């Protein structure tokens, strides 16, 4: 099927999950605009996405053919469990990272990006390897977008922004400009 490099680059840049599909905005707009925070949130996203992609593939290929109407519910259960699992694993293996990521992990459960990943990759019929590559690209893309947005927001904190536009409004406009910039990636890898 699709070339693996194309899948990765497409999810990371050309069809960025946050800037083209608007997934993963939920935590962003609610969480503060610190660069550190954005990176950590993105990292947690990638962990959960990889696990979810693997489980979604297994589910979709072997179990859901018998009960396609359970797709959504089972994906959500998988995501919630993955988040729990990642939390527990992190507590044991890297308590520092766990401290740093702390509040963000449970937030990921209702993050549109994870469910979006599961749905998109099963809709496209990706195999196991393709699904993992897609998850890596998508997670990376979300991290990239969050980091860029957080970075710009950090800068705007010292600017004189009129009060009517402060808050979510200015964040959306900034996101729109970055999204336009990312449109320039279209055509990458297709000679």
């Amino acid at each position: 099927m699709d070339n693996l490099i194309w899948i990765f680059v497409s999810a990371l840049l050309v069809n960025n999950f946050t800037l083209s599909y608007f997934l993963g905005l939920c935590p962003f707009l609610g969480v503060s605009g610190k660069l550190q925070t954005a990176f950590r949130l993105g990292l947690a996203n990638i962990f959960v996405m990889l696990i979810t992609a693997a489980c979604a593939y297994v589910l979709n290929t072997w179990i859901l053919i018998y009960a396609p109407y359970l797709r959504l519910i089972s994906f959500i259960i998988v995501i919630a469990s993955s988040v729990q699992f990642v939390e527990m694993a992190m507590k044991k293996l890297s308590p520092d990272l766990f401290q740093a990521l702390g509040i963000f992990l449970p937030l990921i459960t209702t993050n549109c990006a994870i469910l979006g990943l599961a749905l998109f990759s099963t809709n496209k019929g990706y195999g196991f390897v393709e699904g993992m590559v897609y998850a890596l690209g998508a997670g990376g893309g979300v991290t990239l977008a969050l980091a860029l947005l957080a970075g710009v927001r950090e800068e705007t904190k010292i600017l004189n922004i009129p009060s009517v536009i402060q808050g979510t409004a200015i964040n959306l406009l900034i996101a729109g400009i970055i999204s336009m910039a990312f449109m320039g990636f279209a055509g990458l890898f297709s000679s």
Partner: protein
Amino acid sequence: MNELDNKSQAAQEFLKGLWKENPIFISVLGMCPALAVTNTAINSLAMGLATTFVLLSSSILVSLLKSVIPKQVRITAYIIIIATFVTVVDFSLAAFLPAIHKELGAFIALIVVNCLILGRQESFASKNTVGLSILDALGMSLGFTFAMLCIGIPREILGSGSLFNISLFGDAFEPWVVMILPPGGFFMLGFLLLGFNWYAKKKSQNATDNKLAK
């Protein structure tokens, strides 16, 4: 006296969703579907109505079961209920309106992670009667749909020169294509929020001016 109180309370619960606590403009909930499918007016309307169905049915069921569901597992139970109705909408659209299903794609399923719906279950439907929950759900969903149309209609007019697929300006119109692309979604919502904030600010200005004048 009691009946009048009930009626006005009911009206309040319904109306608050439309403006005062409009899910998108005030609480900034449910971002993801709002921007992704608002590139045409029909899609915005369809998404709004699908969300209405899910919110309404979930609120009714949650309100009916509120005394049965223990506190510890309530979120899980809400999510199961919401996911059920989202699946129902998904399959129903695929069966009866395949064209719309194709347009909205995976975003129908993403209604399940729309913070708005879970939020209403947690803060209202689980604590109020079925009747009031219905009104709350209807108000919120109509507010949501209204907001979606506020984003979708300008985007379609500017980006495709049409409204509900009816061409408005003919061939001479040079469409502002970026409006139907993702950045357009960000810009449109950003500008609408800007307008909203400005209006709210003006209103409070007038109120304080009036107070001072007195």
